[in-house]
């Protein structure tokens, strides 16, 4: 019990419960199944990328180009689906492969150029995004085949009065849950995961211990690339369109969610459970404010405050534990 109370995630959980109670008291539309599903669906994309960002942050890196990778994979996936038809599975395969390729590109640059990952991924963010918009001329894509637009609901049910049809289990949400489980297994139960932790804790020590640093770097950036590719397909399934400006800029939300979940930029720290709570907290705050009628102009103010607040608490905590030694 004492161990649970001491954990960062515990406090995060308490904050979430408090927020849910707060919003439920002040608004009638917050606490119901439909809204809960809405929150899950709308946060699935950020959540999938956040799982990748968690792995990158644990390894001691950062990837700002996630959203650009997602945009590139969305476009290429959309063009293949519309021009060559195919099926849902091939959509995910195409997007995933594009994500992995761009991730490998990032990894090689970060490993061989020996410059901070932040600078490299700012460069690749602009390269990927600028090139995509230049080639596609920033066109929106709508004309997906009917089967594609229909495939995001795995299962739907009708309310007792027969009026409302709820989307039951949405494919992006299923993917989100699978991704979190996969990331948890990789980080917790595989040698690879432990190596990533070691690499983020002390890169020099990991190198001297004989770890294949290039291989680890490639895995980490491919993983986030793969997830943003997969996640971007989910996003298209929800929105039924590809929009050039819809995603780039949201990498801040991804970083906010992971950092809120306790991951540190210094590397070597962070948990899947914390990240899930971070994603949930951001989504609940945003949804609650919208339901309470707060203008969307406040979006960035609130995300900014949450980032500053959570990184400050994390930094302060780290300082205190360091002093303890």
């Amino acid at each position, binding site marked *: 019990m004492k161990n649970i109370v001491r954990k960062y995630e515990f406090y995060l959980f308490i904050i979430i419960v408090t927020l849910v109670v707060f919003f439920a008291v002040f608004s009638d539309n917050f606490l119901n199944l439909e809204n809960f599903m809405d929150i899950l669906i709308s946060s699935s994309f950020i959540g999938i990328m956040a799982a990748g960002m968690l792995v990158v942050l644990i390894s001691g890196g950062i990837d700002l180009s996630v959203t650009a990778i997602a945009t590139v994979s969305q476009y290429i996936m959309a063009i293949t689906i519309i021009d060559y038809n195919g099926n849902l599975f091939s959509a995910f395969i195409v997007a995933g492969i594009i994500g992995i390729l761009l991730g490998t590109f990032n990894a090689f640059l970060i490993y*061989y150029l020996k410059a901070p990952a932040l600078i490299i991924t700012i460069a690749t963010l602009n390269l990927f995004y600028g090139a995509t918009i230049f080639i596609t001329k920033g066109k929106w894509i709508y004309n997906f085949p009917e089967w594609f637009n229909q495939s995001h609901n795995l299962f739907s049910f009708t309310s007792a009065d027969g009026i409302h049809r709820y989307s039951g289990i949405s494919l992006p949400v299923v993917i989100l849950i699978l991704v979190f489980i996969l990331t948890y297994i990789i980080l917790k139960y595989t040698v690879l995961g432990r190596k990533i932790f070691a690499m983020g804790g002390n890169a020099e020590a990991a190198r001297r211990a004989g770890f294949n640093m290039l291989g680890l770097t490639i895995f980490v950036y491919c993983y986030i690339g793969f997830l943003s590719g997969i996640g971007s397909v989910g996003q298209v399934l929800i929105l039924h369109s590809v929009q050039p400006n819809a995603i780039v800029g949201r990498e801040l939300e991804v970083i906010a969610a992971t950092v809120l979940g306790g991951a540190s930029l210094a590397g070597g720290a962070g948990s899947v459970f914390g990240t899930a709570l971070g994603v949930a907290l951001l989504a609940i705050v945003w949804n609650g404010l919208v339901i309470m009628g707060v203008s969307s*102009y406040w979006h960035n103010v609130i995300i*900014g405050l949450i980032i500053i607040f959570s*990184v400050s608490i994390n930094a302060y905590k*780290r*300082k205190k534990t360091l002093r303890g030694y």
Partner: protein
Amino acid sequence: MLKDNYRIYLSNIRSLYQKDPTLSILLFSFLLIVLWLLIFFPGKVLTLGNFQSMAFQLPELGILSLAIMITMISGGINLSTIATANMAGIVSAFVMTRIIADTTSGSTIPLIVLAILAGWLVSLLIGLINGILIAHIGVSPILATLGTMTLFEGISIVLTKGYVISGFPEEYQFLGNGVFIGIPIPFIIFLVLAFFVSIILRKTPFGIANYLIGSNETATRFSGVNIKKILITTYAVSGLFCGIASTIMTSRFNSAKTGYGSSYLLITILISVMGGVDPSGGFGQISGIVLALFILQMISSAFNFLSISSHLTIAIWGVLLLLTIGLRNIQRRSL
């Protein structure tokens, strides 16, 4: 005889390279680009009129590069530069359009001064917040400035609701568009600031400590330097510079808006890295920044002339940043 002269000339170049490789490579690329422009765009890009328009466009980028450069030398980074500049510009714009509109009589100059000072104060405050988060609380510079960037971008949106604020007094517009003995005023402001920063970085204890923190923070702490004070000053100065850049920007555009200069973050990082600032901290000097600034401005004028799309330009800047870092690695290995 001629052969000897040639040999001396060559050895001079070699000693220049060994003395300062970064600067000589920059100088070389500068000459190369001038040559490229002369051969492929004869009498089109390198004209007097174009030089003057470059001298108007360059200062805001230059000052923002200085703002990001001093934080990079200390081993950090300031990602909130553009958000800070826009926020400061919006505050100045509010003071000018809301207050000045009411006082139709008398001189507007005191109120312009008030507006500028209000903007600078806000930018200084944002810099101080960054500094306190980084130095006192121990937040990593990336996250701290990412947070303030998002926060102040948000506050600017809330204040303006995304609209443009425009219609400043003529005296204010003079700051960004005026000319003093043939030289654009923004350019004079930039030169003064660049000179000021180069003196501070090289001659004052603060500047030297800033370099030391960038190369080895722990060693600097144990040699008795007050790291917190230095870092807070660095980020405060960085913030203030964003405010000064915003004064030039808003008076040149005669308007203030949240989204101005969204591509500037990449470009200013590119200028700093190209100018020899080590992204990991500890190295960098003003002369490199100024040369890199001129090189980029000339390339971008050529792009303008060829009417290359802004998205392709962004992609090219990204490639250029990667190439710069790659070349620097090769150069370092060869030394």
